[in-house]
């Protein structure tokens, strides 16, 4: 029933509408209050510290439940015990939804690469849009990731076909100002 599924919004006359929809999604990233490890503190600093103040970029840290969230920042070590919960909470978020993997632990296991209980990379469980390297990344790095994500959102199609494609492991080109699509 959705016009998106029918591809209506891809049409040329509707470009301004698409732009508006993307623009509002871009600047209304409600971020799920959920920290995992060290990085969570840096995420908190990025949100709460006046020096970084992520709210400037339209990232609102209000929702404590995944149901109202658009963005989840996996900030820290993902353990095998935690992995099912992460998967579930991710799925409980309504589409369209975005994931930022923050820090080495979430990216690949980080300093716990050889541990028996750590999942080596959250992308084994959920699809990730932006990876932020660092252990932990500085708050500025997270801000940069948000900006990158926003650029991405501004240029993407509406709906979730793209997310679905990414989930299937396909390469989804999204052209942004700084990351031109590779041939």
């Amino acid at each position, binding site marked *: 029933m959705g016009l998106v599924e029918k591809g209506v919004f891809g049409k040329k006359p509707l470009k301004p509408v698409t732009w508006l929809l993307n623009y509002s999604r871009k600047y209304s990233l409600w971020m799920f209050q959920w920290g995992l490890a060290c990085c969570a503190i840096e995420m908190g600093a990025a949100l709460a510290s006046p020096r970084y103040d992520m709210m400037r970029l339209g990232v609102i840290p209000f929702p404590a439940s995944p149901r109202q969230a658009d963005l989840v920042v996996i900030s820290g070590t993902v353990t095998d015990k935690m992995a099912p919960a992460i998967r579930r909470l991710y799925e409980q978020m309504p589409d369209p939804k975005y994931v930022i993997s923050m820090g080495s632990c979430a990216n690949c296991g980080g300093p716990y*690469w*050889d541990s*028996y*209980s750590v999942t*080596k990379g959250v992308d084994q469980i959920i699809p990730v849009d932006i990876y932020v390297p660092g252990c932990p990344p500085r708050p500025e790095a997270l801000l940069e990731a948000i900006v990158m994500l926003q650029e991405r959102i501004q240029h993407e199609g509406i709906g979730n076909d793209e997310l679905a494609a990414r989930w299937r*492991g*396909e*390469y*989804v080109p999204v052209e942004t100002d700084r990351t031109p699509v*590779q041939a």
Partner: protein
Amino acid sequence: MADETPEVGAPDAPEEAAAEAETPVAEAEAPEAAVEAEPKPAEPAPEPEPELDPEIEARFARFEAGLGDGVIDHAESHGTLVVRVRPDAWKRAAEVARADLDCDYLSFIAGMDWMPAPKTPGDEGTDTSAPVQPDTMTFGVTGSKGRFQVFAHAQSTTKHWGITLKTDVDEAAPAVDSWVSVYPGADWHERECWEMYGIDFTGHPKIRPLYLPAEFEGNPLRKDFALIAREVKPWPGLVDVEPMPGDDTPEDEGAA
């Protein structure tokens, strides 16, 4: 249970063989370090009766007066009194520490596996980053009867002293008495120890996994528990096994 100390620690012959095969490589890795940082000869047994600090000796005397023949050995290690007690006196040792030594504060209870770590098997790309440990089984301060030990540290918040207690655990049926009735805080420590070493604590209200998911198998802190990640991808490992998106290899085209 005789008092003989087993000479060879590793129960599995293949692993031991692998360990022996590994030794020369490790030797070759850090020969100069061995020369440089070698203040004393590799004498495995620590001197059992060094001159103890009189205060520590007095503390031990109080403890021994309470526990009696439960004490096997005692020593001072860097300012800490370490007492090894008989397994059947383990719980009584806690009571004595609490009552006679005023050790009202439980610091920790932990397990110990004295078996030398088996080297990770493998061929050329074997992990060489892990420090090489000696491959004979030696026991630390106050010694041990076998592979497993449980040790704990209790302290006094008023007298400002502490005592480290050790006891031996039978390898075949690892179990000691629980301290929960003496120190309620022992609960989680004992659950951790049970999970990590498989040492059971008789008298614990309900022993169950603490850290790991229920479906986890094995006792991670036992020396023979191998870290799979290290075997699959040794360190410093093959970092970039996957081609980057920009690489123009035809079969990878389009794969992120």
